C-alpha cells in the first residue's frame, strides 16, 4: 500500500484525542513541542514507508493553517 490513508481510521477517535490532550496536560511549551517531535518520529517509524511519509508531509504542509 503506497497511498496515504486520509479517511477515518482511528479506533474510538474521542478516546484517542483525549489521550493526546492528556499527554500534554501541564507541560511547558518546550516540553510539549518536544513531546510532539518524539511522537512524530515514533509514528513515522511505525509507518516506515517513505512514499507515504512524503505524502503525509506534503498534506500537512499544504494545509492552510488554522
Amino acid at each position, binding site marked *: 500500500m503506497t497511498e496515504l*490513508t*486520509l*479517511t*477515518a*481510521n*482511528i479506533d474510538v*477517535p*474521542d478516546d*484517542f*484525542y*483525549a489521550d*493526546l*490532550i492528556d499527554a*500534554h*496536560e501541564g*507541560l511547558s*511549551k518546550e516540553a*510539549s513541542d518536544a513531546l510532539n517531535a518524539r511522537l512524530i518520529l515514533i509514528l513515522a517509524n511505525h509507518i516506515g514507508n517513505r512514499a507515504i511519509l512524503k505524502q503525509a508531509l506534503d*498534506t500537512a504542509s499544504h*494545509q*492552510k*493553517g*488554522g
Partner: protein
Amino acid sequence: MLDERYSLAYELYPYERSPDQDNDTAKRHPVVVMGGGPIGIGMALDLGLQGIPVVVLDDHAGVGMGSRAICFAKRCLEIADRYGCGEPMLEKGVVWNLGKVFHKDHKVFEFNLLPEDGHKFPAFINMQQPYFESFQIERLRELQSQGAPIEIRGQNRVDGVNVHDDHVVLEVMTPDGPYKLEADWLIGADGANSPLRNMLDLEFTGKVFQDSFLIADIKITDDVDFPTERWFWFEPSHGSGASTLLHKQPDDVWRVDFQIGWDVDRKEEMKEENIRRRLDAFLGGVKYDMVWSSIYTFQCKRMDSFRNGRVLFAGDSAHQVSPFGARGANSGMQDVDNLGWKLGLVVNGVADDNLLDTYNSERAHGADENIMNSTRSTDFITPKSAQSRIFRDAVLALANDHEFARPLVNSGRLSVPCTYDGSSLNSADGMAGPERTRPGSPCPDAHLKDGFLLNQLGNEFVLFCINTEGPTELQECGVNVRMVSLSAVDDPKGAVAERYLGDAPSAVYLIRPDQHVAARRETYNENLVRAEIRRAIGKE
C-alpha cells in the same frame, strides 16, 4: 416568606391547602419527591403508573419560564412515551437530522444523524423545556383523574430534613406557614443547586469551567427561512462569541448560544441593546423579536453516591453536565426510568432495599459517561491550554479537506442511552445475539405489523419470546412476568430479527420494567429464567 426565584411560564399547580397541614402529627407518605422539574414529575409519573402513592413538593406554582433544555433525545422520549406523554411531544417538537460545522467563515463539514428506520421516535427533537414539562403535567392530571395516587403541592418549599434509619421528616414552608411531613423514601429532584444536598452536607465534586454562555431565544419576524439544522461555529468571524450555536425550536423560535468568556460583566451583557449588538453582528440585518435570554456558566459534577440511606437523588441534583450534547434532562429521565420500578418493588415489599444500591451503581455509570463526553466536548470547544488549542485548530483545518479529521471535531457528542454493562442485575449472556441487545442494553425499538415494539415492553417485567414458545404465565418471588410473543409474521420488515436475533433462530429475552435487557437465551428454560428474575431484583 416564599420568594419566587424565577417567573413562571405556566401556573399549573397553584397552592392549595392540604389536610396534612391540619394534622397534629406529621402524616407519613411512602414516597415524597422534592422538586417538580422534569425529573421530579417524571418520578411521579413512574410511581403513579405503578399505583405507588407519591407526593411532589415544589416551591413554585408551575413550570419555569425560559426554555433551557431544547434537545430531547430518543431514549428520553421513549421513556416519556412509556409514561404516556411521548406522542404530544413528538407532535410539537421539531425533528432535525442535519448538522453543519463552521470554522471562522467557512463550512468545515456537515453531518447527518442518519436515523435508523423503524423507530417510533427520531434521534432528537427540539422543543422548549416548558413544553416538555407541560406535557408531563397534563399526563399527571390525566392519571390523577383515573385514580392514580399522585399529589403535587405547589408553593411547598422544603426547608429542613431529618433523616432517620427508616424514614425522613420534612419541614415544609407554605403561604399558610410551615408544616411537617414524613416519608418512607425521599427523592431529591431539586435541581443543580440542590438545597437538599446542602442540608445533608453531601459533596458535589468535579470541574467548573471558566467560561460563560449567552443564550438568546429569538423569533425571526423577517421572511427568511433558516433550515431546520444545527449550525455550530468555532471562532465565528462576526466576532460576537468564541463559538456560536444556532438551533431551531417550535413556534419559529431559534436558539442562539454565544460563548462569551469568563471575565464578563453579566449585568452589562444581559442588557437588551448588548444582546442585540451580538445578534445583529451574527444575523446581519435579519429582523427578530427577543423571546428569552440568559447567561449561564456550567460545571461537570456529581455526587459520590446517589443513594444516602432513605434519600435518593435524581436529575441535576445528582449530577450536572455541560449543555453540549444535551445530556441534562435526557439523563435525568433515565434516572427515574431506572429508579421507579426498583423503588416500587421495595415499597411493595417484593424486593429488599439493597436493590436501590443498583440505582446508584447503574446510574453513576451513566453519569460518568455523560460527564466524560460533555467534558471532552467542552475541552474541544474551549481548549484550556495553548497546546490543546493548537491541536483543535489543526483538526479543524484538516477536517475541511480530509475526512479522517472529521470524527475528531467535537462540537457536542449527542446523548445516547446508557448500557448497564457489568451490572449485578444482569445475567450472563445466554446466546450469541446482536451486540446492541446484550444484557444491560436499552431495548431498541422496531416497527411491527401493528405499531411499535417498545409500546409492548416495559412497566412490568416482560418475557419476550421470538419464534419460540414460553410459558403462559410466570411468577417468581412476587414478581409477575408478562408474556410478549412475536414471530416472523409480526415482523414484516425483519427489524426484530435483525435487532434481537442476529443469526440465532429464536430468542427469549427477560426485559426489565425500564425496557432494559436483563437476560437472554435461545429457548425457554424455566429454572434459568426464574434465577434470572431473582437476579434482576437483587435476590440472587
